């Protein structure tokens, strides 16, 4: 049995219905789906407004690193059946879904929530995508704070 894995960097709208269908097997009874959306207003830290975000990706490496994230999920949660990891790029306005990480499994008590959570955390560490925030007072590149280290 081959488990479905959908990995993609795209400039098209995320279709959650289609992505869920693509990772649902006859044995799948539960899906945990994470999506990120563009915030138009942010209260945490320095409160500010956002007009839009401009996303860019280093596509072939992003796809390779999405594969690594999927492999890590399967290693940690062998019960996971389907995995979808999709990053949207381009100019994205508030309320728009920008990223999706979804995992299916036979039952919901198999770690499927933790698997999706792990997936989005890892994506934000190792998948080469960057965003520039454009607000009423100008634009600013957002930088992450994760620095990869050599494997020992």
């Amino acid at each position, binding site marked *: 049995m081959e488990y479905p894995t959908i990995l993609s960097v795209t400039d098209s709208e995320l279709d959650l219905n289609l992505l869920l269908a693509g990772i649902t097997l006859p044995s799948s009874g539960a899906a945990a789906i994470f999506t*990120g959306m563009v915030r138009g207003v942010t209260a945490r830290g320095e409160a500010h407004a956002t007009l839009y975000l401009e*996303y*860019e*990706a*280093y596509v*072939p*490496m*992003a796809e*390779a*690193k999405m594969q690594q994230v999927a492999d890590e999920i399967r290693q940690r949660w062998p019960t996971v059946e389907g995995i979808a990891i999709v*990053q949207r790029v381009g100019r994205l306005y508030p309320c728009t879904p*920008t*990223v999706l990480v979804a995992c299916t499994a036979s039952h919901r008590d198999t770690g499927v929530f933790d698997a999706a959570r792990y997936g*989005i955390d890892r*994506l*934000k*560490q*190792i*998948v*080469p*995508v*960057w*965003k*520039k925030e454009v607000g009423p007072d100008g634009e600013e*590149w*957002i*930088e*992450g*704070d*994760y*620095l*990869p*280290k*050599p494997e020992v």
Partner: protein
Amino acid sequence: MDVQVLLFATLRERAGRQRSIQVNLPDGATVADLKQAIRQAYPALQASLATVIVSVNHEFAFDPDVLPPDPEVALFPPVSGG
């Protein structure tokens, strides 16, 4: 060998929005050598090099790593996708 280095996000903007730069390195050069060569040829990138991430053939690479022949090299800041 001539190595083309892809630039992303702030790195590209600081290099005058060039999508890539080129540096010449001896065979057997390491990632540290690459950074040193960029530091000299592209002073605008100097400040970025302290926290820059280097990838070689789509894998993270580190100072002691030796560049393979015909590498696909990229420089970018810590990622911020999602």
